[in-house]
């Protein structure tokens, strides 16, 4: 899923990252569940790109982002920063990694210390990373950063977090990134808690960061419409596994994994004259309780499940230019059920 790059070493790379959690409970359920199951991803700083990671709740999106940020370690696999495992970075490299790979978290209410004024998050980074030489330069930098995210400094400076709306607080986080100018932003559901009218402002800033400042972004979301708005590449995550990757246009117009297809038919359209024509059946939304390594994760819900789907983990099959799906329906050597053939799987 990589686009061309100036050099071949991705700025941030996940290689076969797996994160298992122990599950307690009755003897039937006890064991390990792979929240993230052999996920690989390469993020390049040049050319700047936006990759959307889309998945439902429980698909492992947040766990994966925490692994990329070094907040939790993978069970197996590794995360590389400019080719070096982030656990093996020396002090200076680690500092560079921390500076260049920056998060935006989901909850705009939980990330601020309520006792400090809002501009403190900006002043802290200026201080910690010694971005300004004088105090007046620091003040100018704060002003400039706030303006860069469509906030008027006078509206924000001197206020406490509770006095700003969620959208404003999220944009202050972007102002912080504007000061740091990292190579990569890991944004974990940054707009899920803010209103639509303000949401597009936030997304536009991310696009501007990419186009004007050359900042790449891994945009993690459950909302396909938002991912579509941003464009670029998409990875679809289902119960910890990547089931489909490709350019967002291809994936939206020609979804090649049954899971992606179902996800797309469930997205409410904003056209009241063109409402859902299909019904969602209940069985298809129940989650499998256990996680089995040698199966397709979607097999219990897949309308086209075949015997092989319960026997092997499907590898990635090319389904279009740069588009891959982990689904045996694209294996030429497998005989498909009639329903699948009718649905266009050959």
């Amino acid at each position: 899923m990589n686009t061309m790059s100036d050099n071949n070493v991705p700025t941030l790379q996940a290689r076969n990252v797996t994160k298992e959690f122990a599950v307690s409970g009755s003897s039937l359920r006890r064991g390990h569940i792979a929240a993230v199951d052999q996920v690989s991803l390469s993020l390049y700083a040049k050319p700047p790109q936006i990759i959307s990671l889309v998945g439902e709740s429980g698909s492992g999106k947040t766990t994966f982002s925490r692994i990329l940020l070094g907040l939790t370690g993978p069970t197996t696999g590794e995360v590389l920063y400019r080719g070096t495992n982030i656990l093996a970075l020396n002090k200076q490299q680690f500092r560079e990694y921390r500076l260049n790979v920056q998060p935006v978290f989901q909850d705009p209410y939980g990330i601020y210390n309520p006792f400090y004024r809002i501009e403190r998050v900006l002043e802290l980074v200026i201080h910690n990373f010694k971005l300004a030489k004088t105090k007046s330069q620091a003040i100018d930098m704060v002003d400039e950063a706030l303006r860069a995210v469509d906030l008027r400094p006078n509206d924000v400076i001197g206020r406490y977090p509770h006095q700003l709306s969620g959208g404003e607080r999220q944009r202050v986080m972007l102002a912080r990134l504007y000061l740091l100018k990292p190579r990569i932003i890991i944004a974990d559901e940054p707009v899920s808690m803010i209103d639509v009218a303000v949401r597009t402002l936030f997304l536009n800033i991310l696009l501007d960061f990419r186009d004007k400042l050359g900042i790449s972004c891994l945009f993690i979301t459950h909302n396909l419409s938002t991912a579509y708005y941003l464009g670029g590449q998409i990875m679809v995550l289902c119960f910890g596994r990547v089931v489909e990757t490709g350019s967002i246009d291809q994936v939206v117009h020609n979804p090649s994994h049954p899971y992606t297809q179902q996800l797309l038919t469930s997205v409410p359209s904003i056209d009241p004259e063109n409402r859902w024509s299909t019904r969602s059946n209940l069985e298809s939304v129940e989650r499998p309780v256990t996680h089995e390594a040698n199966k397709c994760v979607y097999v219990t819900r897949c309308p086209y499940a075949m015997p092989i789907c319960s026997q092997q983990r499907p590898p990635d099959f090319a389904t279009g230019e740069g588009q891959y799906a982990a689904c045996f329906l694209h294996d030429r050597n497998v005989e498909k059920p009639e329903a699948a053939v009718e649905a266009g799987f050959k």
Partner: protein
Amino acid sequence: MSNNTKVTTPPAPQQGTVPAPLSQQHALLQIKDTRVWYTTITGEARVVDGVDVTINKNEVFGLAGESGCGKSTLVEGVLRLIKSPGHIKSGHVLFTYPKSVNGEDTTVDLFTMGLNEVRPLRWQHIAYVPQGAMNSLNPVMRIEDQIADAILEHSKTTKAKAMANVRQRLDMVGLPASVAHMYPHELSGGMKQRVTIASAITLRPELLIADEPTTALDVNVQKVILQELLDIRKQLNLTIVYVSHDMAVHAELADRMGIMYAGVMMEVGTTIQIFKDPLHPYTQGLIHSIPDIGKERKRVEGIPGLAPSPLAWPNGCRFHPRCPHVKDICKRVEPPLLEARPGRLVACHIYSELWDKAS
């Protein structure tokens, strides 16, 4: 209903067009000039500040607006659930329901009734699924027991009958009978939400008010629940007030919609009208900021500016600091909610004579 389109808030501006009254006999819930304020140390927070809207029988009415616009407070006010320091400042809420004694419709004013008179109406006639209801199920009670509890509390029936009713309602929302014996922690988010809906409809109410019932759920589950809601509405002849910030959900579900902003109703119309031909600049901004999946990708600007505070709504039109069409009059005079086109109510000077005079 005599004056459905009356001026929403003082100071009273000149009325432009003469409002044509909407059909009266189909009104189920008439919310008139309703204000719900909160007393805070910095003054009165006028969270709901003069809302006029009529909900008709058997419709799905979508109540939309950004967070903090007062939509949840409005429905809590209608249900008389406001707790101190909140209080109902003014208004009338006329609710028309069939009285079981003689089968004829009675109209009551929920705001002038005593709380002890409102209470019997809840669950029997007006059901409410509050925001985050699925997280307020009692963790140490079986599903059937907590639903039966609500039934016994709000109707005169026996425990055995209540239990039988529970099974039937669970089936109606697509849950297997086995769920009745389970505890909340054994259910997924979507199942829990369906339990709260099943619980709300057990006594066959006329009106269901659901506040963001699918907001925390995945799209697949959301679709299932929305489709079930529509089924239930058909089976029970239910009227639904659906509160959500998510315009796309309204597009799938609602027959008519009301758009709230800063404690007042900005526009009311059918869902198709709202989406295809939004009149109010705020509605226009809202509709245009929704990314449409699969369509041509173009940059949309959203609505710049800050959401105002209920402690000090802007003077004149509350949207004027963010409005692209703002004129002098908008800063001085609050536009009333008037019928701009048949069945379309909009609170914007553009559609009144004042605008022409100003220009």
